[in-house]
């Protein structure tokens, strides 16, 4: 219990700082930018209250927004991800459901499951984010293309972080 109170706030701060200080300065071919921070939402325990997760997602997005002067943009996309997450978890659930206290990580539920979960989650979040960013549908395929490209980079980052963190998980 105490571990939860320390680990998650700490993770929250680290994800936000890493995103705004390091990843936001990375520019890969034009306007493509990896957004690793949403891994925080993806990693939240499955059995946590849906509404609570939605609230945390809003706060996470808002924190990024404060740093990037994009008020409400990341917040809205994160709230969308927080809303979709329970349904996504339902769709991807194993036949007998999730075991209690199993975290939604590759280490616990396998790489196949995690990759499906992360890909859909990241893709939905990024599409939402990029369409809110341009605030118009007139350049539909242009925006979708950027969302797809960023999704790929974000996924690569997420997989890297997941690989390193599952190594430490095994040792524990």
């Amino acid at each position, binding site marked *: 219990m105490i571990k939860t109170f320390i680990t998650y706030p700490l993770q929250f701060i680290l994800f936000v700082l890493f995103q705004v200080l390091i990843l936001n300065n990375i520019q890969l071919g034009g*306007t493509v*930018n990896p957004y690793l921070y949403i891994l925080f939402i993806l990693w939240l325990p499955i059995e946590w209250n849906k509404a609570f997760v*939605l609230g945390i997602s809003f706060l996470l997005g808002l924190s990024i*927004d*404060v740093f*990037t002067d994009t*008020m*409400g943009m990341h917040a809205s996309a994160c709230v969308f991800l927080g809303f979709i997450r329970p349904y996504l978890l339902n769709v991807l659930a194993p036949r007998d459901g999730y075991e209690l206290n199993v975290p939604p990580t590759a280490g616990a539920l396998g790489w196949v499951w995690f990759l499906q979960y992360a890909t859909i989650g990241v893709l939905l979040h990024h599409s939402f984010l990029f369409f809110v960013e341009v605030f118009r549908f007139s350049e539909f395929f242009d925006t979708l293309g950027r969302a797809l490209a960023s999704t790929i980079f974000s996924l690569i980052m997420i997989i890297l972080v997941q690989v390193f963190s599952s190594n430490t998980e095994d040792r524990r």
Partner: protein
Amino acid sequence: MRNLIAFIRKYSFFFLFVGVEALAFYLILKNNHFQGSSFLNSTNKVAGGIYSKYSDLTEYVNLKEVNNDLSNENKLLRENQLGSFVKVFSENIIVKDTIYKRKYLYTKAKVINNSTNKQNNYLTLSIGFNNGVKNGMGVIGPSGIVGVVKDVSANYSSVVSVLHRESKISVKLKKSDYFGSMQWDGEDYRLTVLKDIPNHVLLTEGDTVVTSGYSSIFPEGLPTAIIKTFEVPEGENFYEIKMQLLNDFRQLTYVYVVKNNTSMEVKQLESGRENGDD
């Protein structure tokens, strides 16, 4: 009634989602349409402080380019100094110095946060209203326009970059004085688009584009970009011009906030005109 309560209970999560999402969109619209100091942006104490500390750490990485830019700028200024000119005529001439009144003042600022990879980019500067920065002031870099101040706190200010889809800046061709507006198309941070130049104007690649001075935010004649490609789309009366920005937005470290001493006068005059003949 009971059905209604049951309905809301059943879909409570959905309603919560709609509520929070509405709040997020309210924030987006508020940010897009109102200028003014709101607390929730990078000019607040925590975010500004973190950026400022971090930029102190990473400042050394760009030192070479910054020094290069500064020395180039010094060279230009030195060339424009009175001492670098030789008098052509030897007769005595009367210099009426008082006909010149200082119009623009510059304040040096450090860029502590900058982005070029979004559709709407902003910069955060290390000075705020304690240093005389106000909303709507212009910001210029070593070579040309950088943006316009949007939010100001005591020690930090947030700037709408030229690389912002909604930012329009009035510029003109140095050669022929035709004016148009500069607006970013969100594609490449080095390129921007020049609009409203009629198709009868003669253009060549490499033409310099300077500030027009109409907006009174920026001094007139500041070189900002050079024309890279241009074409007239079928059935249009105006050119579609792509320009190369002279500033490298990825490497901006020191910029200048421009204060116009006469801007109040211009604004009063213009607002009087809009209100009718009174």
